[in-house]
């Protein structure tokens, strides 16, 4: 049977890892909007400089859910510094590729993680911008980022 997505994407889509809310999260980031059809919300729990736990909730297409799942897996247990190095390319590679017009989902995942880390810093009273950089979000006018 042929599939729209690769087996690996489907595996992460149908059995997403780290799905749900994190009660004791100390950083929460949300990216995207319902108008564009994709929202990713990431909950992280940082201890020291390490992301000891991470969960996500995602509204979106199969690849949005799959990238959320794999991205959280790639981040969990990593230091913030390592997490900030996660690029959307790495996420796509980890999934074994995505259809061309679904690449934006991996960008969302990267940005959602950055948003959660930025939130963590903000809660610590630290300006996140020098560390995390600007976070791109969907704009009303253009759903593609």
């Amino acid at each position, binding site marked *: 049977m042929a599939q729209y997505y690769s087996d690996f994407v489907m595996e992460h889509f149908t059995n997403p890892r780290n799905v*749900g809310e994190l009660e004791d999260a100390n950083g929460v980031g949300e990216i995207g*909007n*319902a*108008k564009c*059809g994709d929202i990713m919300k990431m909950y992280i729990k940082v201890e020291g400089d390490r992301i000891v736990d991470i969960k996500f909730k*995602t*509204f*979106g297409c199969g690849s*949005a859910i799959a990238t959320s799942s794999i991205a959280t897996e790639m981040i969990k247990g990593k230091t913030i510094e390592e997490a900030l190095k996660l690029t959307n390319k790495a996420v796509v590679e980890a999934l074994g590729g995505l259809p061309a*017009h679904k690449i934006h989902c991996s960008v969302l995942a990267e940005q959602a993680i950055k948003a959660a880390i930025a939130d963590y810093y903000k809660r610590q009273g630290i300006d996140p911008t020098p560390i995390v950089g600007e976070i791109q979000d969907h704009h009303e006018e253009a759903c593609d980022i």
Partner: protein
Amino acid sequence: MDRLIYVDNAATTRILPEVLDKMMPYLTEQYGNPSSLYSFGQNARQAIDEARDTVAKYLNCRSDEVFFTSGGSESDNWAIRMAAHMLEKKGKKHIISTAIEHHAVLHTLNALEKQGFEVTLLPVNEYGLISIEDLKNAIRDDTALVTIMFANNEIGTIQPVAEIGKICRERGVLFHTDAVQAVGHIPVDFSGMNIDMLSLSAHKFHGPKGVGALIVRKGIRLPSLIEGGAQEKGRRAGTENTAGIVGLAEALKLSCEKMDEVIPSIKAKRDRLIEGILKTVERSRLNGDPVHRLPGNANFSFEGIEGESLLLLLDFKGICASSGSACTSGSLDPSHVLLAIGLPHAIAHGSLRITLSDDNTDEDIDLLLEVIPQIVSQLRSMSPVWEKIVKGEKYE
């Protein structure tokens, strides 16, 4: 997956075995070119002539008004583009259509706009119906063409085609209808409804893919979209797809002959599905007109979830359904049809189209009623949008 539950009959349909049987000779020993003089070619010619008569009979038009094409898209492009070019010469550069047409119509209109045509897209109400008053007011002295679909491919709404036809005829404006979703499913009366041009596509009524027709009222000198040989009375060039044409006619015949019997039975199944879903799934709604609706069509929106992931999980259960037009699956924007009936973007994203055929059984409906609510709540449980809805928060 045990069994395939195919409920995407608006996307395409199964070729009926009886239809394939009729096609087979023309895919095997009867391969003569219908334009050839010898008997071997004339056999194919005769089969095409008979197919033309069949189409004429079931759509109530003349045989010489039937022109075979490669499908609905070609028919739409041909009718609209070439009627526009024909009437441009008489100074008519205005076209009226609706906001919910298929892309084969809308993109053709876009192309014409770039060439200087003015296009008025009539709005539709919350059920997807145009207003006859709007149409009357939109017609101008320089209106070349009114093109309004017979029935919508996403929400199944059936337009008041006979009324539209009457007004256009009275006002002396050409009327084309994209009847791709209507033909073979509900009664279509070309002459009785005062239609000037009508598009149809065989694979939407259990015929083969890649063949359709444009019916053009006698007397309209529609220029060719595809120029060349003398096929189709010189109006549509290209060696005829004999097997496809024979298949189209047979599928039309079978669909029309059993229509009276099939419509109530499909409707009963569909209505049970609609009632069941709306009752079991909170914050769900039916899109499209409750009455003026294709017999097999059910289109739902579920708040808080996104259609593609819904489809993928249905696929896992062997259920083939759609989240809008199958043709637009490359796009990120929610369906223009759902937006036109006033759905907010976020809700439009969470739509599911189920389109039944005569093949679908009561067990299929049972399964859908079991599986859809499960999947919807599974997706909602991981949806940040649903979280907001539950908390009573605003979301766009």
